[in-house]
């Protein structure tokens, strides 16, 4: 069991009239090596769920065990370390740092691990080769297309060999062809044994993922396995 959520609440302005329950009693488990889509409309709470799963945010109530360890009681520094080593993020807006080259962007999580320059660059280069961007290692994000930038972002997410990848609308800013390439890359990661959690509002994308969790108003509506054509 990689992820175990138990009665997770995320409540803003608790007790006031304008109280918002972004997560309203969510429980779910995700096994190591699963490919899960979390689907919902905007405002459904799926982004909050991703933030909690990605250790970017702490729930108001509830228990969250990641890899057997309780998350909700961790300090800032410990959460930073967990994000650094166990989770790879892929965002809709790529979120690369514009002043850094592709290689430096990919090497950044490794730098925060304290890895030395040479080893860091070698590891980052491997990740770039994996996403087919080795030739653009010295380019800055502004010199690359959206699809290329997202591939750099994927390389950054996988560089530290995390146990799970969190992809938040990774195809949202891409045309359908490059979007498909990005999805294929996530499928490939899944085949290699990485846990992949994909957050999307797009049902056609959700249709390609073996397990789909629907969320609405901070609650889980359904949690179903399905056949997919690429397996």
């Amino acid at each position, binding site marked *: 069991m990689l992820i175990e959520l138990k009665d997770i609440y995320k409540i803003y302005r608790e007790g006031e009239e304008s109280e918002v329950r972004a997560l309203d009693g969510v429980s779910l488990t995700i096994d190591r090596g699963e490919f899960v889509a979390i689907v919902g409309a905007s405002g459904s709470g799926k982004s909050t769920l991703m933030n909690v799963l990605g250790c*970017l945010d702490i729930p108001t109530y509830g228990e969250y065990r990641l890899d057997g360890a309780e998350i909700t009681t961790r300090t800032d520094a410990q959460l930073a370390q967990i994000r*650094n080593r166990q989770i790879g993020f892929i965002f809709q807006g790529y979120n690369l740092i514009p002043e850094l080259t592709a290689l430096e962007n990919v090497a950044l999580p490794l730098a925060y691990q304290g890895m030395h320059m040479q080893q860091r660059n070698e590891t980052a280069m491997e990740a770039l080769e994996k996403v087919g961007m080795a030739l653009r290692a010295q380019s800055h994000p502004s010199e690359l297309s959206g699809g290329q930038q997202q591939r750099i972002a994927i390389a*950054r997410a996988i560089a530290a060999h995390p146990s799970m990848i969190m992809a938040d609308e990774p195809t949202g800013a891409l045309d359908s062809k490059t979007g498909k390439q990005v999805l294929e890359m996530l499928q490939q990661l899944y085949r290699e044994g990485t846990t992949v959690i994909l957050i999307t509002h797009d049902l056609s994308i959700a249709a390609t993922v073996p397990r789909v969790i629907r969320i609405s108003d901070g609650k889980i509506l359904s949690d179903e396995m399905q056949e997919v054509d690429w397996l």
Partner: protein
Amino acid sequence: MTVMQSFRMALKSISAKKMRSFLTMLGIIIGVASVVILVSVIQAQNKKSLEYLESQGTNKLTVSAYRWTGGDISRDLYDYCLGLSDLVVGVTPEVHLYNDGLSVKYGTHTVSATAEDWRKSGQFILGSDQYGLCNNYKLSAGRDLTRMDIDNYQNVCVLGGGVAETLFNLVNPVGKSVTILGTPYTVVGVYQKKNVDNWPELDNLILLPYSLNRTLGNNQTISEYSVKAVSASAADVAAIRIQGYLSALIPESSGYSHVQNNNQSMDSMDEMLMAQSLVLGGIAGISLLVGGIGIMNIMLVTVTERTREIGIRKAIGASRRSIILQFLIEASVICAIGGIIGILLGFLGTLIAAKLLLKMLFLPGEGITIGAFAFSVVLGIIFGLYPAIKASGLQPVEALRAE
């Protein structure tokens, strides 16, 4: 993230916004340059004054005494000091003549009191037979003035080594006749050069018997004297005795007298140097402080602008510590670069100011250089701290939402 990596990252961010970084540095540059220049010019001034006092030798008293009525006390003081022979080595009037057109000529060579090149201008001084003794001049040829020269109004002079070289080149000046204001004077002696770097005029001395005050000095009253004592303790005793004698000789109602011990002047010079440096350095330091506030301002803007970047860094695993380090290093690197440019400007400014104001070659000492640099880096850390802490406290979720 090691410090080295943070350092490289800081250089990258700074060079990405060159104009802004430069404007931010400007406060530090101006602050450091003005601290360096002000403190250095004071040090130069004091170095020059100390050199002068030292060239005059230690254990010297400067005496000011005159009667309102103009009656000359030179002979009285001379005779009184003869009686203090166990304390006093010599006594001499010190009258600098600045008359228009004053010059000394030999053949085609001239040394003028008002030469365009200050290094070549002659110092025409009326003194006694003990002038050289009192002011640490040693004869290289001929003889000093004598009491006879003074009492008999002899047209004789002793030349400083510099003047002798200018006028006579390799010829021995002793016994030769030079012309001052149209009148011939016999050179009776030449002093060795002192070669004090910033006081070349000390070697451009033309010493004349003080009794010639009647003709050369337009009969003005002689009021300044130097007395040389045998030792530091003798100087202290002699100062009290001479002051006592003068007070009796010139009652307060009829004139003025004052004895100044140059040993004490040298001591108080050091204290003055310290005080002046602190005051002026402090004033200039305020401009550094203003520069520091500018750094804080721009770092706060930078943190706001880079909220998203901070969010990304935190999402992929940057700890608060790494973020603080990143912004602290960025602020200190800006200050350090500003400090280095400021020091270079300070060297240039000191060179120019010392040349124009003090006519000497002077560069800032290592103390003020290292001090100013260290202070600017510390300033960067102090004023970078608040923005850095603010940046590190951003929540990744909120930071990522920023546009």
